[in-house]
């Protein structure tokens, strides 16, 4: 997660503006295939020029949702509005959306040029204009030299760019990307992520991307919808999703996290401090500073990211901080980070990550050491769902 930069280039948050009109609206959408409910009474707004991600494991309904917007599937119930207009019943070839397919779906019998021109030819544009647009697109994806090649003479990365150019050529109102980078290797994928963001900003289009790769979603998106079993668990910016997940599911799905089950021992009113909660996690008392709807006795979970847990051989001087004591069970060396698996007296494991700022030889904590894990009251979260 450390490498994810997020879109920090511009200030853009129409979803916080109550007067903003959504560009795309999924309204109570349900889609069933026989007995199987792929999408379950889902409502979602996406705004113009937004880079929006649908994130979830395979089978969560994210692809079905996208295919309904493209027109390949019709919703069983509910409707989809594009710029306020109901588009149900409009066939895919009359919708102002274009899709970049997971398999790229490049026409194998046509050259790169012909593939990119295909959509424009359907609109019966004059030949000269088609040629100019194709050239523009080839330049955009840096494939000018490959115009005359067939798809099978291209590398995976080049094919991906042809697919992108083809879907952008018609200047769609919404570009749909179905696992666009899934077939690329890690390094190429990271490069392409930033290119996608540049292209989106440059052309000022609305991008809707489907992915199961949380890192990808975090990197490129303005907002992310985390989906599970046909419903949306949380819609928020990448930073919010990471720092303030609203449920155990989202917390666990995005990044690495320690989750300790427990019950509310005392709430703000009892503690006298606004926004403070005390949780009893099977013998470990944890204080959290958080606005929380839960009342005393509620079953909740305490969640904390490993990089927010401090590890030290010495007992903390500050007695107000949360602290647990345990034995170093395993160490995962990740290069930039080391993850320490600390086993508590009752057998529970808590993970703590520490940046490797000093050289290997100096690492003071090793296997079998007894250590203290501490974290401030504002580092963790109470999860009620």
């Amino acid at each position: 997660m450390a490498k994810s930069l997020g879109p920090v280039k511009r200030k853009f948050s129409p979803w916080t503006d109550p007067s903003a009109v959504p560009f795309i609206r999924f309204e109570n959408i349900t889609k069933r295939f026989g007995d199987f409910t792929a999408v379950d009474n889902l409502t979602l707004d996406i705004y113009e020029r937004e880079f929006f991600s649908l994130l979830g494991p395979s089978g969560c309904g994210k692809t079905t949702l996208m295919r309904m917007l493209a027109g390949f599937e019709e919703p069983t119930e509910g409707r989809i509005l594009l710029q306020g207009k109901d588009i149900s019943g409009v066939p895919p070839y009359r919708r102002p959306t274009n899709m970049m397919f997971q398999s790229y779906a490049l026409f194998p019998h046509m050259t790169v040029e012909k593939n990119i021109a295909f959509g424009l030819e359907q609109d019966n544009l004059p030949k000269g204009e088609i040629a100019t647009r194709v050239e523009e697109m080839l330049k955009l994806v840096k494939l000018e030299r490959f115009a005359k090649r067939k798809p099978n003479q291209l590398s995976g990365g080049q094919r991906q760019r042809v697919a992108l150019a083809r879907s952008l050529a018609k200047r769609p109102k919404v570009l749909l990307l179905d696992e666009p980078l899934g077939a690329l290797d890690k390094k190429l994928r990271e490069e392409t992520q930033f290119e996608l963001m540049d292209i989106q900003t440059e052309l000022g289009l609305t991008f809707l991307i489907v992915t199961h790769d949380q890192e990808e979603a975090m990197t490129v998106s303005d907002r992310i919808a985390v989906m599970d079993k046909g419903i949306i668990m949380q819609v928020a910016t990448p930073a919010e999703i990471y720092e303030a997940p609203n449920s155990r599911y989202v917390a666990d799905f995005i990044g690495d996290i320690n989750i300790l089950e427990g019950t509310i021992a005392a709430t703000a009113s009892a503690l006298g401090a606004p926004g403070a909660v005390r949780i009893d996690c099977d013998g470990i008392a944890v204080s959290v500073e958080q606005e929380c709807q839960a009342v005393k006795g509620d079953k909740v979970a305490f969640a904390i990211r490993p990089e927010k847990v401090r590890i030290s051989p010495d007992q903390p001087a500050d007695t107000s901080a949360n602290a647990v004591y345990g034995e170093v069970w395993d160490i995962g060396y990740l290069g930039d980070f080391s993850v320490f698996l600390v086993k508590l007296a009752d057998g529970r494991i808590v993970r703590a990550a520490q940046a490797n700022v000093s050289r290997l030889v100096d690492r003071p904590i090793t296997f079998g050491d007894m250590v203290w894990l501490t974290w401030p009251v504002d580092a963790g979260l109470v999860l009620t769902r």
Partner: protein
Amino acid sequence: MASVSETHPANRSNPARWLVVAVPYVWLLLFFAAPFLIIVKISLSETAIALPPYTPLFKGFGAIGEFVSQLDFDNYLFLTGDPLYIEAYLSSLRIAVISTFLLLLIGYPMALAMARAPTTLRPTLVMLVILPFWTSFLIRVYAWIGILKPDGLLTLLLQSLGLLGADDQVQIFRTDYAVFIGIVYSYLPFMVLPLYSALEKMDNTLLEAASDLGCPPWKAFWKITFPLSLPGVIAGSMICFIPITGEFVIPDLLGGADTLMIGKTLWTEFFGNRDWPLASAVAVILLVMLVVPIVIFQNQQKKVA
């Protein structure tokens, strides 16, 4: 790939493994390739009345000059000089071209419908196409005689439907139309199966992509589906066209006296007139005509393999 397989441990170490290649190779050389050389040689010899009805083949391996001087192009001159033979060749080609076109016309929609059927249904449909192929060719042609005869079932059916007067009869049997029906019927599985295997392999997302880019379904068929199924179209057409050109049984049983097909001519020259050298010459010219389609077919097969 080549080098990998050559040095594969299963292929190395045992010289006896070459028997795997040698046995079928020698068999085909002896019984498939050698006969073609003989047929060419005999087509160039004179007709003799004795049995075997041509001049002896082996006179020892004498001078090549002597061999060449013995060559006799009379049979070929005779064939090219007689309009009947030329007409038979042209008529065979005409019938084969029309039949292949009809087969495509009927076979393509069938293959497309099969490829678009639910996956669970497809094996059954393939089975249903193959099953008639397992029953005898002769039987299937014979079945049409009973239907197409002037006093046959088709006449009876049309009469009972009132489409035909009680004294009228369907005049299809022993005409070219009956030959077309027989050919289309017999060769349909050979056309449908290659088309189906080409269409079934097609990635459905390509059609979705076309639709997404603004292409309506009927247009997507001509821009995407059809061009991508061309290998199947070529394979199916060649598998049908080549043997139809030399077809004997169908024109003989269903065709009329004026149905000219070269397979029938060859049969008559051989069994009727006992003119072996002329029959051989007929066969050689037929083979020469079919060289181009056969080479196309072979290349297609190699690409698939």
